[in-house]
């Protein structure tokens, strides 16, 4: 038996009078399907007498699925949405109803309306950063609790550096430590919060390096070996900047020599001279490649100057002398200061 609707959009053929053809949201089937007969919405049933539509309503509430987001909300200003999806026992959407949305922080409650299976409520989060809980209840049913995190208000974290007021000495390792990094509500900035230190001197030389929060503050160290004079520095984040601070780096001084060994080569009248242990006032050997200028003052009035470089705190050179040179006075000049030493003839070893 073939049945055609008046406007030709529907045709179907029944092999028997008893058969029915049903269409629903997911398609069409013949005969009986107990599972599908419980799916809410319009069912269109055609039989030998024609077609009729019937609408199946949802049953009572069976479960609530909650979606809370966004997942990282800024304390004090972030707005989170609690959204519930309401189903009956057959998976049909609950088309209308009332529910309660709850957020643990501040014990906030809202009555929300269920429409077409969905209910929403928005919450402004409190001032305590951390993990929080939300849930939705209705008709004695409760959603699985959702967790969400609130994060500090990084835009309000004020920046500053803890200072002692002391100068640094060149060659020192100088440590910078920020003041506690907390937002306006006292929440510490999270580990990994990025700040940058910009440091520059009057010559326009500058350095820019990150200081990353390790919880409550950030620290970093610099080596002042090649630094001299006043440096101004300032801390930045994406939102704020600190006051400007000044660091004075006092240069090192060359203060002592451990000893001097001299071998006098008789055949050439050259003093092979090793100056050991050039030491600064911080009791450090001078750095390798420190330029050392040695002037040899001979007793006969002659003098000569040599440009040398330090290695392991030592300097060595070959100095030509003339008859009547001793006692020889060596002046040792460098950026770190000057020293003098006298070498008498008995101080030297004679070699051929």
């Amino acid at each position: 038996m073939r049945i055609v609707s008046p406007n030709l959009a529907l045709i179907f053929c029944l092999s028997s009078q008893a058969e029915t053809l049903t269409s629903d949201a997911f398609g069409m089937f013949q005969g009986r399907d107990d599972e599908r007969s419980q799916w809410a919405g319009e069912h269109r049933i055609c039989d030998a007498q024609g077609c009729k539509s019937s609408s199946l309503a949802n049953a009572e509430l069976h479960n609530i699925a909650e979606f809370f987001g966004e997942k990282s909300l800024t304390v004090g200003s972030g707005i989170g949405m609690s959204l519930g999806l309401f189903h009956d026992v057959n998976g049909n959407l609950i088309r209308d109803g009332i529910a309660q949305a709850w957020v643990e922080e501040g014990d906030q409650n809202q009555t929300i309306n269920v429409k077409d299976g969905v209910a929403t409520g928005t919450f402004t989060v409190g001032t305590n950063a951390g993990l929080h809980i939300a849930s939705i209840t209705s008709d004695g049913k409760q959603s699985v609790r959702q967790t969400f995190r609130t994060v500090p208000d990084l835009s309000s974290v004020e920046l500053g550096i803890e200072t002692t007021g002391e100068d640094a000495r060149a060659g020192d390792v100088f440590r910078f430590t920020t003041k506690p990094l907390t937002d306006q509500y006292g929440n510490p900035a999270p580990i990994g919060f990025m700040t940058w230190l910009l440091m520059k001197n009057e010559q326009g030389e500058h350095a820019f390096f990150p200081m990353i929060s390790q919880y409550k503050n950030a620290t970093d160290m610099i080596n002042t070996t090649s630094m001299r004079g006043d440096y101004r520095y300032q801390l930045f984040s994406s939102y704020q900047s600190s006051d400007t601070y000044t660091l004075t780096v006092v240069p090192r001084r060359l203060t002592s020599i451990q000893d001097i060994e001299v071998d006098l080569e008789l055949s050439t009248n050259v003093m092979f001279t090793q100056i050991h242990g050039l030491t600064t006032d911080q009791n450090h050997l001078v750095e390798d490649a420190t330029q050392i200028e040695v002037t040899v003052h001979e007793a006969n009035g002659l003098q000569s100057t040599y440009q040398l470089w330090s290695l392991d705190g030592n300097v060595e050179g070959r100095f030509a002398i003339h008859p009547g040179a001793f006692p020889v006075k060596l002046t040792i000049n460098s950026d770190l200061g000057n020293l003098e030493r006298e070498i008498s003839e008995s101080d030297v070893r004679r070699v051929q």
Partner: protein
Amino acid sequence: MRNRPLYSIGLTILLLFTVYVIAIIAQSMSDRHTEYSYFYEALDELPETHEIVTWTDDQPKGRTLEENNKYDLALKITESWEAYALAMDKGNSNVLKDYFATTALERSTWVLESDPERRANMVMMGMTVDPQVYHLDGSLFQFRSDDAVYVRYLIDGERLSAFSLTKDCILTNLILRQSGWKIANHERDCSEDLPIRPSTLPWDLPPLKGINYYPKNSPWSGFWKDYDKAIIAEDIEKITDLGANSVRIFLNVDDFTRSDSAKRSIENLENFLEQTQDASIYVIPTLFDFRGDLSPHTWPADRYYLDRVLPILASASNVAYVDLKNEIDLDEGYQNPALVEAWIRTIIGVARDIAPELKYSIGWSNAENATRYASLLDVISYHEYGDAKDSKLNFERVKIAANSKPVIVSEIGETSYDLTLGMPSNLKKQAKHLQTRLDQLSASDGVLVWSLYDYPDLDPKAVSGSFWHKGIQKNFGLFNKFDQIKPAAQVFKEWKLHVE
């Protein structure tokens, strides 16, 4: 001579054998091999997915819906229902998990598993999305639609045992998982049959004397790719010089849907309609040319195609009617006839919904099939390549069955292919046979000749087969490959079409 009859028989046999050998040699010479340097050149391109979803201007409760969100959601909604149709068609539930979740996944899986014979299917053919709720964190999107077009059908063997084309009111939730959007809930609140009544507008066109048209150097798939306004203008002039008042053209699916060609093709179509209108030429556009596999998951793309071309055709004043599919009866030779029927019924319904003002027909391959689906169509059209002497009788039978609807014989033609010694045909025979056919059909509402030109380079997608068959197909034109008018053209020019 006593042996004269024997001599004649022997000569005839020798002649036929010679023709046969020539044909075999020519066939082997014409076999071509194509060499590719890269695999991607040899393989078919992957089809593009186009969304068939439009939007209301409303914003949902919660998060603002931006254009990129709409694009993502529209594509996912389209793809999800394509996947549904594919899963039902192939009986493969794995694909459902990529597009459906929770309740919707359970239900779609139930539908599939409770139909092991894969009789039933449902295809979404377009909708307008009315956003309702969009979570602030972007994880859930709810929408309604009051005009979601769904086709539902049951197939038993090769018989379409149930078919329903409706506009549904639906409520759908999508949730965003790591792998993308998935339909979580889908409920139908109401439905109404999509009306597919024939057009109520009168047929007030003059008798159509026309030509099936491709330009000389760009037939079939070259037509829109190599469209040249100047060439079209010249050909229109030729067509009007022949006394024709109509042309039948072909709108390939790919040209009007692929992102690298659609815009250009639509502009060219507008130009073609404009030029023909200026020349007082009616146009019969034929849709879905080179439309292959009719598996249900491919049908949404047809909606996309119709949305693109039908408004253009509807806005033109010289479109006589739209030929929805060329020779769809031949598709039944290699696809399930029930599936073909479900498809064409869907296309008729959707086309009428998009452009109800247009008149529609189907270009059947022969008179026997001409009145199929006549109650759904406005014009009855078929092709007549049988014995010329039977053309009048065939037409009269169709005319009676058409029940006062106009009957257009949208393809007739004769070849002038002369392999040797006037076999199988020649210019004179072509003209003679065409004359006979035209005279037989002079009472019809329209006749269109295949074709304006000979086409020495046949499109392999359109014509395949033996050397002999191709030779015949190459030589149906009223003009030869050198642009010289053939005697058949004169026959066509002088022929008058009367409506009794």
